């Protein structure tokens, strides 16, 4: 069970970080310390989302977990946008926090769906 949980949380976080960092880079954020907020924000939100989806699958198995994934994704976009915006106000070099949050989360979610379909 422990191995299963480590794989579930670990792989999900690593893939999300990889995708969102690439997206952040493509959106113009410089590599290095400037990407640290993106890493921390994902460490904050990803395990919570994965945990809630896992609990959903255990307790509400009959209902497709897509029904919780989508609202959660919307909440995550909002939370990440708020943090990025707050960071940007404090001097972090991110010109468009809203775009970063939407594009990065949208891409990572779509990639996740694609990977689960291919498995």
């Amino acid at each position, binding site marked *: 069970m422990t191995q*299963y949980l480590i794989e579930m949380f670990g792989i999900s976080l690593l893939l999300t970080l990889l995708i969102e960092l690439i997206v952040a880079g493509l959106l113009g954020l410089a590599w290095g310390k400037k990407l640290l907020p993106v890493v921390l924000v994902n460490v*904050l939100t990803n395990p919570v989302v994965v945990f809630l989806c896992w609990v959903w699958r*255990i*307790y509400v198995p009959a209902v497709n977990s897509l029904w919780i994934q989508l609202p959660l994704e919307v909440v995550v976009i909002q939370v990440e946008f708020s943090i990025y915006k707050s960071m940007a106000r404090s*001097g972090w070099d991110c010109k468009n926090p809203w775009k970063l949050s939407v594009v990065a989360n949208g891409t990572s979610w779509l990639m996740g769906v694609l990977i689960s379909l291919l498995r």
Partner: protein
Amino acid sequence: MKRKISFWAICVGLMLNVLPVQADLIWEPEGDDFYTEHREECEYINRTYIANGPDGQVMVYESPLSREVVDVWEKGKAAYISFAYEDASGVLWGIYDSGDASKSGWVCLEHMARKYDSKTFCEEYQDQLTEETVLVKGNEENKVLFWKYPGARENSEVIIEPEGFELHLTFVDEEGHKWAHVGYYRGMKQYWVCVDAPAAEFETLYPNGAVQRGVLLAGTDITVVEDTIYADETEQVTKDNETNEGVVSGEPDKDPNAQKEQTTQEADEEQVSLVAIIIAGVVAITSALLALLKKSFGTKK
């Protein structure tokens, strides 16, 4: 135009002819959401299984992914399993429909042993079956005993037509009795009759006991297929090649529950709570780091 209409009329006619036959051959469980959703992934197995789980019990779950137990079976309960589903961890689940939706659900087939029956017998003795036509007639009361396989202990009494009926697949058992296979006769499916003595009881046919086919499930008088037995910590009565009396053997097998726990997402409430606490810790630490990072940006400005 007329040709086209005739062609389609023939096609529709053929389809109408075929559809009811299919419906008659394969019964599908109704009202099970999981089966409806995973119908394409389920395999038709059409077999009777016997409950043989660890601690003498088998849990019936709402679905292979659910933790909700809808019923608990004691060892020895017979259940007809129509379809099986293999989950992501390779665990095979069978659907059971009791007719009562609240008691119907899915059982782990690792905790069930397949009942030894006519089909199993045909598979095991395939090379000893002969295609020949024999006429079976009943006794003076037109009584014939139907057996699940040659050497089975239980039988069903059937009154047949005085002129008898023909069968086309035979088997000669170890005592020299000729048996014939009944595919279907008056609602009776997959049976055997003894052609030499159609109304003779077990003791008459086998005064010294019959060859044990399959394995007697420990603690019961039910015969099951040997390789489907879940060997728990208790000893199993296994096949004796010579007589009906079993011998004791049995190596403890690994517990499929433990195996399942390692490979599936099934978790108890304690584990969920523990994961929740760890995640709360991660959230707290990350929030603190984010606050520090924000401050560092502010200082630089």
